[in-house]
C-alpha cells in the first residue's frame, strides 16, 4: 500500500508500472486519474486550491484502502492526492489497484474513489473571474458511495 498526500505532481505511468514491476502474480492494474476542469457550474475556473486536515488525511485514505483490501482480492493499492494550488488540466488524484483478475481491480478502484470523495478530509476552492468560491458537495457523490453498502 502506498498513500501519498503531496503538493507536487505525479507520473501515472510510473505509478502503474510500480504496481506490477517484479510481481508476476499481478494480472490486472486498474487506475483512475482525476483532473482539474476549466469550467464548473457554468463558470470558468482559473485555479483550484485544495485544503486538507493533515492529521486525518492519510489515516482516512489508509482506512479506505484497508476496507477495499478486505472486500476484494487485491495485491497492492496506490493512492496519491495533491493539495495546494492547482490549475485547469492539472492532475489532482491517482488511484491504482493491482490484482490477479480485472474484476477486483475495476471494482476496488471505483470503490476507493467513491469513498475518498465522501470520507477523506479534502476541500476544494475554485478561483473564477467572479471571485473565489468553495465547492459544494454533490449528493450524487453520496449516492455513489452508498451503493457499495449493499453490493458485495
Amino acid at each position: 500500500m502506498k498513500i501519498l498526500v503531496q503538493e507536487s505532481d505525479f507520473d501515472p505511468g510510473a505509478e502503474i508500472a510500480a504496481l506490477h514491476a517484479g510481481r508476476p502474480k499481478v494480472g490486472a492494474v486498474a487506475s483512475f486519474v482525476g483532473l482539474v476542469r476549466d469550467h464548473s457550474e457554468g463558470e470558468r475556473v482559473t485555479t483550484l486550491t485544495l485544503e486538507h486536515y493533515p492529521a486525518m488525511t492519510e489515516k482516512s485514505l489508509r482506512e479506505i484502502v484497508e476496507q477495499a483490501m478486505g472486500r476484494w482480492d487485491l495485491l497492492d493499492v496506490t493512492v496519491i492526492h495533491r493539495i495546494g494550488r492547482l490549475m485547469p488540466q492539472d492532475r489532482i488524484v491517482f488511484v491504482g489497484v493491482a490484482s490477479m483478475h480485472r474484476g477486483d481491480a475495476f471494482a476496488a478502484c471505483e470503490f476507493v474513489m467513491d469513498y475518498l470523495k465522501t470520507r477523506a478530509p479534502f476541500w476544494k476552492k475554485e478561483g473564477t473571474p467572479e471571485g473565489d468560491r468553495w465547492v459544494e458537495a454533490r449528493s450524487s457523490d453520496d449516492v455513489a458511495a452508498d451503493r457499495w453498502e449493499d453490493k458485495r
Partner: protein
Amino acid sequence: MKVKVLYFAKLRELFGMEGEVIELPGERAYAAAIVDLLRKRGEPWSTQLGLDSGNRMAVNQTLAGLVTPVQDGDEVAIFPPVTGG
C-alpha cells in the same frame, strides 16, 4: 475538561480561526455539547453550526457524529462535507 476544536474550509474562513481550545464542564460529554456551546456565541456561529448545516465532525481524526463521546484532551474537527478527489 478541555478539547481542541479545529475548523476547516468555509468554517475556518467564516470563524476567522483554524481552531481553539474549548472548556466544557465535567469529564465526558457528547460532541453535541461542543456545537451547542459554539452556537450560543451568535452569528456566524449559530447559523453555520445549525442542525441543518450539513457539517461533518471528526473526533481524534475519525469521522464522528453528535452523539460521539468526547473527553479531556480530544481533538474535535468541524467541517463542511468533503469535496476531494
